[in-house]
């Protein structure tokens, strides 16, 4: 249960083509993350799968059956919305029970499923409260609970963590990952945050302007990005891109090197520059190095305790085997 196939899907709003023909297969039990900058069509793609938008052309297959013109409720998918979309006038219990009530499930089975979902999500004490009396994280869990009780063949998450504060986001990230391990249900997760994508996904789909730039496991994308866009999008801080003479030396239009693959060296190293802003995170330090003659700024990751401050001259040695090379169309060489 839970294999989703998109075949030559397109979507246009009026004359604007949001999603050009697109093929994608999401395997059973996979945690797939759609990631991309805002406006790249990732939410639209999720809504097409959910059935909340109609496809302009193409076929959506769920478990081998054509679901292109099936009503959202008939697709066996459950969705968690960005705003949680809880029903404000219903208690938590009624919110969770709503899809079962609509399906006409008998009361005993409803109670059983509510109890087990509430236990799994730590909501047992809040079942008789209304959404307005809950914190953001609790509301998030109610929304997930409402999705779980339907026992769907796949879960769809539309930027579910973007309304939470940073600490809670890390916690919920873990909870969703654990939920996936436990349920082993297909999950499709939309986010613009590459950290969420890297930490949670089995498979990442990087989108830009409705096109799939690359599909692969997090480490595949990190190690072998197919083009400059993916290379820049995956990894934090961003990869450094260097064009011109230095790139020409490597027979490329442009070369890219991640901040963590540049070592701080002593005098006589390949590159040097002046430290501008330095960000001390404790475990790591990020230097923004200027006046290297390579690019405006080169970002470098160093140990937390390195004794270099703003204004110092710094010598850098890139790890040669970690350099990515791109041609003038931005594709990896």
């Amino acid at each position: 249960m839970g294999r989703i196939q998109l075949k030559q899907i397109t979507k246009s709003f009026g004359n604007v083509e949001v999603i050009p023909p697109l093929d994608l297969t999401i395997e059973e039990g996979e945690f797939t993350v759609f990631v991309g900058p805002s406006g790249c069509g990732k939410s639209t793609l999720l809504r097409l799968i959910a059935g909340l938008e109609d496809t302009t052309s193409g076929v959506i297959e769920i478990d081998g059956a054509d679901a292109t013109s099936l009503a959202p409720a008939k697709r066996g998918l459950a969705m968690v919305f960005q705003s949680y979309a809880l029903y404000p006038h219903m208690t938590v219990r009624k919110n969770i029970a709503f899809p079962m009530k609509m399906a006409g499930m008998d009361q005993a089975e409803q109670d059983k499923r509510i109890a087990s979902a509430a236990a799994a999500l730590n909501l047992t004490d809040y079942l008789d409260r209304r959404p307005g009396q809950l914190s953001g994280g609790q509301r998030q869990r109610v929304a997930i609970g409402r999705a779980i009780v339907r026992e769907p063949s796949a879960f769809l998450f539309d930027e579910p963590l973007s309304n939470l504060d940073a600490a809670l986001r890390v916690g919920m990230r873990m909870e969703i990952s654990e939920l996936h391990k436990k349920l082993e249900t297909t999950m499709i997760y939309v986010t613009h945050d590459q950290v969420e994508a890297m930490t949670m996904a089995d498979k990442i789909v990087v989108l830009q302007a409705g096109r799939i730039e690359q599909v692969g496991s997090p480490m595949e994308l990190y190690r072998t990005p197919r083009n400059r866009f993916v290379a820049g999008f995956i990894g934090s801080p961003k990869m450094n891109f260097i064009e011109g003479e230095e790139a020409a030396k490597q027979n490329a239009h442009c070369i890219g090197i991640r901040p963590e693959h540049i070592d701080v060296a002593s005098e006589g190293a390949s590159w040097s520059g002046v430290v501008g802003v330095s960000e001390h995170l404790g475990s790591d330090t990020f230097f923004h190095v200027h006046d290297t003659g390579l690019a405006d700024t080169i970002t470098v990751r160093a140990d937390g305790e390195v004794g270099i401050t703003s204004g110092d001259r710094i010598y850098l040695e890139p790890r040669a085997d970690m350099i990515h090379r791109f041609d003038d169309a931005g594709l990896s060489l």
Partner: protein
Amino acid sequence: MATQHSRSAARIMMAPAVILLLGWMLVPLMMTLYFSFKKYLPLRGGDLGWVGFENYARFVSSSSFWPAVSATLMIVVGVLLITSILGVLLAILLDQPMWGQGIVRILVIAPFFVMPTVSALVWKNMFMDPVNGLLAHLWKFFGADPVAWLTEVPMGSIIMIVSWQWLPFATLILLTAIQSLDSEQLEASEMDGAPVLARFWYIVLPHLSRALTVVILIQTIFLLSIFAEIFVTTQGAFGTKTLSYLIFQRVLESQNVGLGSAGGVYAIILANIVALFLMRIVGKNLDT
């Protein structure tokens, strides 16, 4: 900001408005109470002294008292039912994207700007007239006998006229409420397998409950004292005599100010009873 000084300054500056409003309300109330205990017949001897509760007893024992109370309540309930049900439906209709939305919305609001007297006259003479009215022509076009609306179904006619005036108000408030409904909630319920009617019943209607409460409470206040529509149509005949119309007749047609004032006090009591019930039934929606 809220220092001792600024608070007393605020009190002084608000005083004129408060005193004016208080006087506006208290003086008529006091005069009503004062006259209700007197035998006061302006054209037949003027002030004839105190009579205790005689006016009150006479007003209730009159054969037109209970019919007037029930007519009042019938109009209030009828208009409330029609305007809230049609108001919800119209609000949903106007919320749909359509061509000429702006103009349609303005047209829907328009009846609210027509004065009650004018609208009642227009309905009476242009629509409901059994000889020349538009409705009479419509009936004749289909080969039916024209209905003499105001004599055959007087109560229904008045409820129709008043509903026509108040429907825009209900629609306007409900439309703004419906527009504030989060579309993700509707989508979530769609994903949860709720068909259209269930979405309306479980999502849209609860969302509208607060706006409906406001509509019902405000309309009740105005509908309890409805007068002009009856004055220019049936003149209180055919069982359409409301409490306020009865008071009008006692004071101006029978020239008995004392009796009318006692009726006014009853009207206040009735309004309070209705308000109490309404607050019990719908008022809890305002809490959350």
